């Protein structure tokens, strides 16, 4: 890797760092927020961060494989969101409030 000067040129590590930051923001969202839907959104955010790193790798490695995987990740994310929200709606229907505490009722 040629020496990258931090500002003038955008190398692979820039994208990876960006995706890492997004990932951690998403993770903090998952950990901190009480509202379930926001937790789901933060998970989406994390998945997007992962997508960025995939595409970055595929560009700098000239390998289309990265983008194909993004396709798959995308599908999974959509599927997860769909099912997740279906569950959340049923929770909301029963408890009139979407809050992570209610998942404790599912406790073993």
């Amino acid at each position, binding site marked *: 890797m040629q020496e990258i000067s931090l500002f003038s040129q955008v190398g692979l590590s820039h994208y990876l760092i960006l995706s890492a930051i997004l990932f951690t923001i998403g*993770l903090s969202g998952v950990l901190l927020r009480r509202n379930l839907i926001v*937790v789901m959104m933060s998970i989406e955010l994390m998945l997007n961060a992962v997508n960025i790193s995939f595409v970055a790798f595929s560009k700098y490695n000239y390998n289309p494989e990265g983008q194909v995987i993004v396709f798959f990740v995308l599908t999974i994310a959509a599927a997860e969101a769909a099912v997740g929200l279906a569950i959340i709606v049923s929770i909301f229907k029963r408890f009139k409030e979407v809050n992570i505490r209610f998942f*404790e009722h*599912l406790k073993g």
Partner: protein
Amino acid sequence: MNHQALIAILLLAPFAGFLINGFRFRSQNYIAAGSIATAALVVSFACAVTLFFELVGMPAEERRISAEFFNWMTVGNFKVNAGFVVDQISSIMLLIITGVGTLIHLFSIGYMHHDKGVTKYFSYLNFFVFNMLILVLGDSLLTMFVGWEGVGLCSYLLIGFWFNDSAKAAAGMKAFITNRVGDAAFLLGMFILFMTFGTLNFHELNALAPTTMEASWLGAVTLGTLMLFIGATGKSAQIPLYVWLPDAMAGPTPVSALIHAATMVTAGVYMIIRLNPMFVAAPNTMMVIAIIGAATAVMAATIGLTQNDIKKVLAYSTVSQLGYMFLAVGVGAFGAGMMHLMTHAFFKALMFLGAGSVIHGMHEEQDIRKMGGLKKYMKITHWTFVMGWLAIIGFPLFSGFFSKDEILWSAYSSPRGHIGLWIAGVCGAMLTAFYMTRLMALTFWGGSRVDKSVHPHESSAIMTIPLIVLAILAAISGFVGVPHAISEYMGHIPNFWEHWLEPVIRKLPDAELASVTHTVSEEWALMGTSVFLALSSATAAYVMYTKKLGSADKFANSIKPIYNLVDNKYYVDEIYFGAIINPLISQSKKLWYYVDVNFIDKMTYAVTDFTQNAGKLVKTLQNGNMQQYAMYISLGLVAVLSFVLMR
């Protein structure tokens, strides 16, 4: 029938009786149970007699029938087989055990017929005889020890037969524990002998016994024999460990007759006679045996004076007669000891059975102060009892006279004897005569003190026949071994007894024998004095207890402190409890409290509490809060990453 088969049948008959009665122990059919048990005894008595005559047929030197059935254990080069030997000594014992046993079984059919556990009683009795036979026939100390323990067990079972009465159960327990203390010493003795001689087989031991006398007290032979003797005191109720015998009267009377008169208590004497070469080699032990024998004889006799329970009096007389046997053995007169063992077996069994029939007649009344004048009611019991009485006080020409006199004489004449021993012996004899006559007077002669509700009646035939047979035996068994002094005047009847035992008994070393010379006239003098003293005390007792009843009490009051001391059996039980048992119990309680409760329990509780708390701690992790789970995942991730970076 070869010899092995005979011995096998001899042994297995009582065992079979035990098993059969054992399996049907609930049945109350006393006739069936009794007949099975007695049949077993008759079979083994027949075998014993045939074996005896086989032996008689053999030349004197190798009179020895042995049988080995299976290899019990081999530990390194030490091999023990279940081997049994019938020779001069054990054959006599066989005859006594099976003979007296059969009579006693017959008697107990009548005595125990109303008892609920009659079958159980007979199975225990048979089992006892089986163990006694093993003890007697055992060819090594180890096999004997098996019998020794078996007998101890049976005595416990039989003493505590009516275990629902806690006193009787406690008596059984007491007997068993005191025996166990003796057995421990017995074991130590066996170990020492095995250490020194490498074998426990009687034949080999007797052969290996050193001919030179061992002077030091701490020599192997002395210590070994001493330990064995302490074992014997436990089993045969001598000074230190005799306390269990008076309490053993809690058992049914035939049991006392069989176990505490004829067989078990003589086991100690038999063991010493069996190993006589070993004991001869240890003069110090013999001196100890003699002294303890004499002391027991006198002490037991004194306690006998104050007892009011008919069986207690007989128990203490047994202890003192055993004292005589040990006295004889202690001075080296093994033959005389053996002779007295036999005669004692007969007249003591007789008297116990007599007491049994009296108690049976008086409907379980044992206190002689409430009896009296039973002569009229129980003719046969009375006359058989008189025979026993005459034998025990040593009335001339009765069996007691011959054997006791022989012991007294050898106590005086034997190189290891001593004039003091003879004096103690004579005192013992006087006291025996006195309390036996007191017993006779209070129960049979004199005015009847029986209260109205009780109608004494003569026992049935099945109980009186054994009495008669025993009475005859008690009377004539003396002529087996007439001492030399007397035999001159009685047509030179040869001393069969001495002659029979001679090859097996080891004489004292010639040097010692040479050092002492006695004349026949001395013997006659001593004999005369002892007989005179005995008869005079008997008449005194007769007079005190029949004519002037009050006089006994007056005399007792006059020597109040001594009387109380004797009456309370020298407070021996109390001393034992105070000195040994109670501190032992309190120590163990303390030990239990401090070590077990505080220390060990605390440790275990600590462990369980620790795991429990740890569990609670971990439980908080699983509280269903998903975000916390996610947090743990991310923390894990952080840990992994930092590890990767760190490397």
